[in-house]
């Protein structure tokens, strides 16, 4: 594993966090070294896992720092805990999915996405943990309609009216509920998935199908006005 680390002391977490990944090593060679070490045994595996964990922790902290506005009120200890939990879960996910790494990107880029996902999901859930989900408005005529110029923005107003009609007549109650929560109330998709006991993918499919229906209904086959 020595060739993977910029430092000669791979178990020294502090050094690893500060050191950028090596960039000169060929992508596939680098990836195969990581895979071999993580599938190895004993000390080699432990060292590789510790090095990877340090990199994941760094990626998780990067993400949490970006989302700090959503973490307002969270102390440093809480944020450190979130970063550590994210790195721990990302490492577990990576170790169980090594077969899915295809050597098409750098191993570290592939690994970082797991840490970013974990940290992003934790941030969104924490930001919404005290908040109730919005209720389906039922009457969509109250759709938030920013004040538009009655003359200049006539086309946008007409399109908005057509969409409201289509929402009320073309969509199922579940599609309306999902559209309302994700688009109007801007509930993060993983937060909504957790509350509804479903998956992010399933919810996005519902949203996608609802959007297709709306587009078809109002004849919006292009991106005009959007």
């Amino acid at each position, binding site marked *: 594993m020595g060739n993977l680390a910029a430092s000669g002391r791979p178990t020294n977490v502090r050094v690893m966090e500060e050191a950028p990944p090596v*960039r000169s090593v060929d992508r596939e060679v680098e990836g195969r070294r990581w895979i071999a070490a993580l599938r190895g045994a004993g000390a080699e595996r432990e060292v590789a896992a510790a090095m990877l964990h340090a990199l994941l922790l760094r990626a998780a902290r990067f993400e949490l720092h970006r989302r700090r506005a959503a973490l307002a009120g969270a102390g440093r200890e809480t944020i450190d805990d979130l970063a550590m939990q994210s790195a721990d879960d990302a490492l577990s996910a990576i170790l169980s999915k090594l077969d899915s790494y295809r050597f098409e990107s750098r191993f570290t880029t592939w690994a970082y996405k797991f840490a970013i996902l974990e940290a992003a999901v934790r941030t969104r859930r924490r930001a919404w943990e005290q908040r109730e989900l919005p209720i389906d408005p039922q009457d969509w005529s109250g759709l938030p309609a920013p004040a538009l*110029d009655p003359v200049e923005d006539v086309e946008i107003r007409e399109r908005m009216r057509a969409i409201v009609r289509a929402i009320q007549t073309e969509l199922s109650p579940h599609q309306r509920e999902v559209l309302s929560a994700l688009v109007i109330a801007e509930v993060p998709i993983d937060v909504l998935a957790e509350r509804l006991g479903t998956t992010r993918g399933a919810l*996005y499919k519902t949203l996608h199908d609802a959007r297709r229906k709306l*587009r078809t209904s109002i004849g919006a*086959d292009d991106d005009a006005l959007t």
Partner: protein
Amino acid sequence: MTPSRESRRACKHLLAGLLGPSGPEVTCEDCFANLDVYVERELAGDGADVLVPGMRAHLEGCPACAEEHDSLRDLIARDTGGRI
């Protein structure tokens, strides 16, 4: 920004959210599966959207995936100085 322009922008943002992207798009699962390759190709200016058709549309339609994409792109860009 004038109130009218701001209102128009807010309205277009709402319309975009309600109607979503116009073209075919990948799923959230496929987005995650290809995110690392897409970001590296994107930073290298090497045909990311040809390699993963439907990715750009999905990122326009899914705010959560877009956030994660932006974070990974910026992290890798910072590490590599934008040179992949």
